[in-house]
């Protein structure tokens, strides 16, 4: 997994609540057996005029010009600013894969759906929860100032505004450690294989029907 330490970037505003993973990456793209290549179909139904297919030439498809990611001022954004309950619905990890493949490394929102939130950490995306009023303020700033940038400093757990003001955020210690070092969870867990085996020996006695 790619490490995340600190990033400064333009911010793209996704100004609607309850953005679901069907919207982030529609079902027809879930037929891929790969982890990569989902970026061109991120928010496909909102981004393009037509209905995309896995074999479509996306560069030739008509764009919905008003959609936020199609506006020139938000090109090359690596930070997505979102509303409450971002990533709700299906558990598809294709959603964070699509966000990452498009170029997003950070999503800021007042709240996230649990499975999506968890999936972000497995893919080097930092999901940051801020108070609703603070997120509201950031939306106002992003809309008001073309080229508005934020710096996300994971080590310091701070978002730094253009005026130098810092917004502190919480992140789970273990997940922060994994993100900053690009660690593979499986490798970490396998370091405890003796504990797993001991658990199996113990539970085989109490619940043998789970080991048939």
């Amino acid at each position: 997994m790619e490490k995340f330490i600190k990033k400064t970037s333009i911010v793209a505003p996704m100004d609607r609540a309850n953005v679901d993973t069907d919207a982030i990456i529609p079902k027809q793209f879930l037929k891929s057996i790969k982890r990569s290549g989902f970026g061109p179909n991120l928010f496909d139904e909102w981004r393009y005029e037509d209905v995309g297919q896995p074999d479509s030439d996306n560069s030739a498809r008509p764009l919905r010009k008003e959609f936020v990611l199609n506006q020139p001022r938000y090109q090359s954004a690596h930070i997505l600013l979102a509303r409450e309950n971002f990533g709700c619905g299906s558990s598809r990890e294709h959603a964070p894969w699509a966000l990452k493949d498009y170029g997003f490394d950070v999503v800021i929102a007042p709240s996230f759906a649990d499975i999506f939130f968890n999936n972000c950490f497995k893919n080097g995306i930092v999901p940051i929860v801020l108070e609703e009023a603070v997120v509201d303020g950031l939306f106002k700033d992003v809309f008001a100032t073309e080229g508005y940038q934020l710096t996300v400093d994971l080590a310091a757990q701070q978002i730094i505004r253009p005026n130098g003001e810092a917004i502190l955020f919480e992140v789970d210690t273990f997940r922060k450690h994994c993100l900053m070092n690009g660690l593979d969870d499986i490798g970490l867990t396998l370091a405890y294989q003796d504990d797993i085996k001991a658990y199996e020996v113990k539970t085989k006695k109490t619940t043998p029907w789970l080991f048939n």
Partner: protein
Amino acid sequence: MSAKTLYDKLWDAHIVRQEDDGTALIYIDRQLLHEVTSPQAFEGLRMAHRTPWRIDTNLATPDHNVPTTDLSNGIASITDPVSRIQVETLGMNTREFGITEYAMGDIRQGIVHVVGPESGATLPGMTVVCGDSHTATHGALGALAHGIGTSEVEHVLATQCLIQKKMKNMLVKVDGKLSAGVTPKDVVLAIIGKIGTAGGNGHAIEFGGQVFRDMSIEGRMTVCNMAIEGGARVGLIAVDEKTVEYVKGRTFAPKGEQWDMAVTAWMDLTSDADAVFDTLVELDGSMIEPQVTWGTSPEMVLDVNGRVPNPANEMDAVKADGIRRALAYMGLEADMAIKDIPAEYVFIGSCTNSRIEDLRAAATVLKGRKISDKVELALAVPGSGLVKQQAEAEGLDKIFIEAGFEWRNPGCSMCLAMNADKLPTGKHCASTSNRNFEGRQGAGGRTHLVSPEMAAAAAIAGHFVDVRDYI
């Protein structure tokens, strides 16, 4: 020892190790696999030269891409080459790693959340995971079950464990008696309407109270299935005699001496009387009416006799904006009656409502009646080959067909339209599935979530109606 909730008990029994900050390694007893969210996990195993920790805990079946029409050519029946490769890949992966698969053509194949309980692969007290958010379904049997992403599918394959932090406890208590025509689907939609689609975020929800004690196991599955639509990854219902009776004799259920031992253990899978929940929500079951969603989120739900909301009456700007977007997408006018919404498509199926009791309930409404000529397509899609076989043995297929429905083969079908069953742009669908998101059943399609009975009644009328006028 302090009182524990059902979730506390299940969690505690599965801790392999726990760090001081609460991060725990949790043991997984069962992983269910399907073709959409597993290929990258198997590929990850291969690339890291890893092998599954315990092959026997995994059970696979293809469901999302499977056609519901003619299957006589096996996998070759899938005309979309991309879908076909995904189903073939599941077969290659399960063969390579020695995992049991109920493949296409096997009578036991079906929607993974129907197959798990039906085969006894899901048992009370287990931890159950699957790369699918509707894994909450299995909580109906008193199992700790939730959806995971593909990285975690790989993690469970390789280690039999997940790294987790404990969730909070929520009790959704529904007492009283349901009126005739009010179903488990209406109960869960009413709950989501009350708590909102983010209401259960960070929580494991236990559904408690008279309504759930009275409910059948399949009804409980419908309720737990949609815990995720209320934001909770986990839905749970306490084990009782009905649970034990349901599990008895199923393929993977314990037998003989182990059965007796298991039943004794399972009967303790209830929350202690004085257990404390972080959040409590209460509803009066006798007040719940048949529900219909009008918008693009499951929380946008109303009684069938209600009227579509008007954004002008909503004070919260983000919410008002959400209502306006939903009305525009759904092609509805503010303040219009739910009963004036047309039902041009009808879909009875999905992991929420495709079990035998769902098909029986819909057939009861349809018997001796014809669907409206305004309905362009009505589909009945059983949840598994075994459900289909049972329905046919009871003659339900004939009732559906005589009413004007198409009687199809099992799969996820038009719930998410990864196969050829798609809701066309602009069409309204009375659907027994679980999500009414934009584009969910087909790009531009307009989904209204209802119970099987309500879907059958809408099919007859050609628009949404109160099923109580049809029973």
